[in-house]
Structures are given as structure tokens and as C-alpha cells.
């Protein structure tokens, strides 16, 4: 009888094209799913829909121009990406920047991180089905973007960093507004917990979903909050401090469960850490120049250079091979999202489509960052 049933009532695996235009893929990522009913059997990731060959473009751009191109990678951590190129050039040219520059850069880094994480929080809620969170996330993000706008004139692609300092000095309201936003966030982040984190449906959707072990996380080269959810200590701010991160005392957010909820908690905790970092620095901005004098045409010395920063999504690296000209000979960006996405198949195997969406949003992919 059983044989008869399996013979006669055969089920069939089928393919489903998720994307490139799909609400859950956050841009133009195409996932080719092999499904058994609703159960995911395989995920093929197809990239290239937003490939702009930015690295090749950088080989025809001066170092000052490269900064502008890095905005277009992970646009939610534009400031950190800019900073990576600036730090690299400053390291190569032995330019020593003063504490004012370092501290302002760090504060802006952390503000960017918060604004990126509140957006992620809203989008995650929406992917799980709670649409209201999206608006909540954007409310806080708008306030932070207002500070950016006042400081450097742009809200998303900031280009506030230049080699040897900052493009403009901070606005006179900067300190006050930053403090205001911190008090605002301290009131609102507990609200986030009430609305989403402590919701039983939300927890059931994330706990024990998309588990990835420490060994696998290291093997796949995961980084940033995604890896820290599996218990990998990989915060560049701790391991290779840059700018003012050696002046502050903060905790690296690490959870060891390795599931989607751990990754969620890491990001929530990172927001609190960012608030604490900004609080430690905001009153310590010394009076000094906002820019160190540099040559009009910047030429890096012959050699290989690497600079890593902790962007919102993880370890962002810039590698430059210079032959002494004003253009780099070779340039490579190491983007956090690319490595994180590779683990998707491992995480989602055997789970449902709904889980795949949840995993994708806790990995926090930004497609222009993956597909350069």
C-alpha cells in the first residue's frame, strides 16, 4: 500500500525565481529556489543585475574621486566606506590627523551605524510581516539624516571624509542635535523591544532558524553582526582600532546561538553600544583644524596597501596596489555582504520560504554592496 502511494502520488521539486524584482530581496538580487512544496532544497544566488564594475572604474579615478565611488557600494554605511579610503591614503602618505578629525569621524561612523541599523530593524519587521516597524525605523533614521544634511549637505551619499580630514567643519548645532537624538533614541529603542523583540510570534519566527555554527561562520568568512551572532569575535573596531576607537570603552556585541534571533540581538545591542560611544566622545571634541593640508594631486607611494573598517554590515576592506601614479594600479573592495550572502544556502536548507526571507533580512544584505 505504501509503495502504491509513493508510486502514484509522486511529488515533484520545482524551481521558483525569487527576484530580481521581489519585495524581500532588498534590491535586484535573484534567488533561484529549488522547492519541495514550501521547503527550500537549494538556493542559487544569481548576481550581476546591478554590477557597475566600480573596482575597474576606480583604476581610472584619482584617490579623491575614489572616495565618491565608495558611497555607491553599501549606501547605508557611506561614511564608513569613505573613511576606509581616506585612512588608507593617510596611512600610505604618513599624514597624521588630529584628534578633532578622529573624534568627529568616529561620531559620524556611529551615527551612520545607528541609522543603518534602525533601517534594517524596520525592514526586518516588514519582512516578517509587521509593516508598522518600517515607519518606526524611518522616523529615527530621518532625524539622523537631518544631522548629516546639516553637517555636510547630503543625507545618503555623504562624502564628508576627504584625505587628510573632513570636507567642512561641523555645524554649530551638531553637538546639541546629536545629544538630542541620543536622548530620543534611548526613549525609542525600548519601544522597539516592546513592539517586536518581545513579540512571541516574532521570536518564534527567528529562534532556531538559519543556525550557523562558529566553525561554519569562520569557514564561510562571515563578518560583522552576522558572524557575531554565531559567536565569532570579528569587530575591526576592537581588533584593529582606527580613528578614535582606541579612546573609547565599548563592548563588542556577541551572541553565541548562531540563529536569526542572535543576529537580530547583535544589531540591537550594537545600537546601544553606538549610543554609548557617541556619548563618550561628544563632549570631548577639541578645538582644532578640521583638515590637514595635503597636496592637490595625491600620489600614493609604490606598494600594496590595505585598510579595513567596521562598516554597518561588517568588515569593509580596501586594497590598493600602487605604482606611484595618481591612479591606483589595482584596487579591490572587500565587501561584507558578499561573504555573508554565501552562507544563505547553508542556513536556509530544509526550511520554509518564509524562513528564507527572515534569514535574508537578518543577514542584512544591501545588494549594491554585494554586486559591485
Amino acid at each position: 500500500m505504501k509503495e502504491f502511494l509513493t508510486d502514484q502520488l509522486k511529488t515533484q521539486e520545482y524551481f521558483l525565481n525569487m527576484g530580481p524584482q521581489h519585495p524581500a530581496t532588498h534590491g535586484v538580487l535573484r534567488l533561484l529556489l529549488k522547492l519541495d512544496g514550501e521547503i527550500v532544497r537549494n538556493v542559487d544566488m544569481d548576481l550581476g543585475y546591478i554590477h557597475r564594475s566600480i573596482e575597474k572604474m576606480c583604476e581610472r579615478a584619482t584617490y579623491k574621486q575614489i572616495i565618491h565611488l565608495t558611497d555607491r557600494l553599501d549606501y547605508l554605511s557611506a561614511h564608513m566606506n569613505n573613511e576606509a579610503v581616506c585612512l588608507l591614503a593617510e596611512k600610505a602618505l604618513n599624514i597624521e590627523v588630529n584628534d578633532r578629525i578622529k573624534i568627529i569621524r568616529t561620531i559620524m561612523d556611529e551615527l551612520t551605524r545607528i541609522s543603518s541599523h534602525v533601517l534594517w530593524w524596520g525592514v526586518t519587521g516588514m519582512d516578517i510581516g509587521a509593516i508598522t516597524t518600517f515607519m518606526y525605523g524611518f522616523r529615527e533614521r530621518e532625524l539622523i539624516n537631518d544631522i548629516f544634511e546639516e553637517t555636510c549637505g547630503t543625507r545618503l551619499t555623504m562624502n564628508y571624509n576627504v584625505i587628510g580630514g573632513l570636507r567642512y567643519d561641523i555645524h554649530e548645532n551638531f553637538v546639541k542635535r546629536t545629544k538630542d537624538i541620543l536622548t530620543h533614541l534611548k526613549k525609542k529603542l525600548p519601544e522597539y523591544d516592546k513592539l517586536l523583540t518581545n513579540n512571541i510570534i516574532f521570536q518564534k519566527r527567528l529562534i532556531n532558524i538559519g543556525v550557523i555554527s562558529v566553525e561554519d561562520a569562520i569557514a564561510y568568512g562571515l563578518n560583522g553582526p552576522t558572524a557575531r551572532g554565531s559567536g565569532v569575535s570579528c569587530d575591526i573596531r576592537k581588533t584593529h582600532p582606527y580613528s578614535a576607537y582606541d579612546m573609547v570603552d565599548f563592548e563588542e556585541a556577541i551572541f553565541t546561538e548562531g540563529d536569526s534571533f542572535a543576529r537580530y540581538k547583535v544589531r540591537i545591542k550594537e545600537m546601544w553600544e553606538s549610543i554609548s560611544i557617541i556619548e563618550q566622545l561628544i563632549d570631548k571634541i577639541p578645538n582644532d583644524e578640521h583638515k590637514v593640508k595635503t597636496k592637490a594631486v595625491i600620489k600614493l607611494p609604490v606598494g600594496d596597501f590595505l585598510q579595513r573598517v567596521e562598516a554597518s554590515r561588517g568588515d569593509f576592506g580596501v586594497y590598493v596596489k600602487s605604482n606611484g601614479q595618481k591612479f591606483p594600479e589595482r584596487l579591490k573592495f572587500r565587501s561584507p555582504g558578499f561573504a555573508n550572502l554565501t552562507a544563505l544556502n547553508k542556513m536556509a536548507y530544509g526550511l520554509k520560504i518564509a524562513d528564507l526571507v527572515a534569514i535574508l533580512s537578518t543577514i542584512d544584505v544591501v545588494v549594491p554592496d554585494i554586486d559591485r
Partner: protein
Amino acid sequence: MILNIFTDIHELLLGLMPENIVHITELVLIAVAYLGIFAILGLFLVWLERRIAAFFQFRLGPNRVGPMGLFQTVADALKLVSKELTGTEKADKFLYKIAPYFVITTALMSLSLIPFSYEIHAFDINIGLFFLTSVSSVGVLGIFLAGWASNNKYSLIGGMRTGIQMISYELSVGMAIVTMVVLAGTLQISEIVEIQKDGWLIYQGHIPAIIAFMIFMIAGTAESNRTPFDLVEAESELGAGFHTEYSGMNFAYYFLAEFVNLFLISSVAVILFFGGWLSPFGITDAIPFAGLFWFIIKVLGVIFIFMWFRWTFPRFRIDQLLTLEWKFLLPINMVNIVLMALMVWLGLTL
């Protein structure tokens, strides 16, 4: 169920034509009136949903077209009417076209059973509640067919989810209704409302009635495909689910029917638990048509709770949805029916 105005119309028509033709004319008039109610209800509830969503999300919502944006949904409906009806080439044409009518017809048929007040009640039969549940369960077919006939994998997944979800949760809705019928002792809707003159059923039946109410609200949310049970059209997973391939008026049918179903579920909740058109403590019983006011107020209250759910909760996963129904709601429901029966038998009702 006919009072002054209706009697007047009846006599006016009798003066104009023979009796059997009057009968048919009246049926047509009632049908047209209910079509009107259907459209207005749908449009108003869409507007309400958008305003309430905006209220939860500190936005303004539609506020430009007409007073407080009331005509925004009318404008949207006009736009949808004027749009082209597209469809996939390899769709099962017959089923694809017929599917929306299942949803809209059943919603309309169920609507005819709803008493808006003592006077306004089109169709009052002795198996009213049974008829209502049977008819509204046919509506699933419309969604199921849409998922199947569209020839789109997203629609198909949505359709399959509907089949699973609606059939499961219909049990809970049905059994919550049965619990209250045990207490009321009748299936006729007008009688159920009348026996609540001494106290609403949620008060008369106290503990089991409150449990039944909670189960009814949960299962009712699932029946009307709203968050946290909106797996059928889960935007972030399936795009638009079963109605991905529908456009223009065909899509609008689904959209309107969804909101009318919301109204139906809320009305049944009000009839079963909150005394239908009856005013609290009988304060306005003497005034004709006052029941309409109370009924609408109560239904809007229940609808607000449903909308509150929608804009607060995240979505279930399909297996969690089934676990909730078969492992929790259904056993609780069964025990609850026995409890209610015992209470009625022992005379413990208030």
C-alpha cells in the same frame, strides 16, 4: 421585519402592479440596495483601514480627496474600473475569470443575513448562522481557484496556503459559533439578538463565552486573511499571493470582498457576543432605526480591534499557523463547548 417606510413602499407598489410582480420587484430592489451597501462598505472600510494604519504609523493617510480623504477610495475604485484586465497567456481562462465571482457572490450572500437593525434585515431564516457559515466557506474556492488558474507559482503557493488555512480555521470559527448557539438555543439570527435583551451573551455565558470570543477573534482574523495570518498574500514572500495575476476590476473584487468579509466577521461577533442592534441597557429601544446606530458602532469597534492586530503583529509561518489551530485552538474549543453545555444544563448562566 418590515416597518413603516418599507410598508409604505410595499403598498405603493401594490397600487401599481399585481402582487406577484410586486414580490419580484421588491426582491430586485433589495438586491440592488445590498449591492450598494456592499460597495459603500468596501470603500469605506478601505478608507478606514488606511486612516487607522496611518494613525498607528504616525502618518496622515489619505486626506486630500473629499472631507478627510473620504473619496480617496472612490477615486481608487474608479481608477481600477478603468484599468485594463490583463492576464497570463497560459492561464486556465474559464477558471481564472470565474474565480473573483465566487468571492464576491458569497460575500454578498452572507451580507444579506446580517441584521443592521430590527427593521433592516433582508433574510431571516431559522438556520441563519448555519447558512452564513456554509455560504461564506464557499468563498475559499474563489481564492483557491485564483491561485490555481493563474498559472503562476507564487499564486499557486498562495492558493495552497489558503486551502490549508481556511479549512483549518473554519473549524474554530464554526465551533466558537456552536458554543454560543448552545447558550442561545437557536440558529435564527433575529432570535439570538432578541434573547440578549436581558444581557449580552458574553455576559450571560461569562467564562466560556469569553473564551469563545477570543477564539472567534483569532480564527476570524485567519478567516479574513489578515495579519498575523496573511500568509495567503504575504507580500514579503509571495509578492501578492493568489491575486498576483489579477488587475483592474478583477483585483478590486478580491480587495472589496476582503473588507466586506472583515465586516461580516465583525458583525457575527457583535451578533453573537455583544447583542447585535440592541442598545446598552435598552436606552434607545423605543426609537425606530436606533438599532442601526448601535450596530454600526459596535461593528466598528470590533473592526478596529482587527485593524489593530494587523498593524501590530508580525506574520506566522505556515507550520506555526497549523500548530496553533490543531494543537491549541481546537482542543480548547472542544472543551469549551462541553463547559458551555454543562453550564447551560446546570443553569449557571447569568
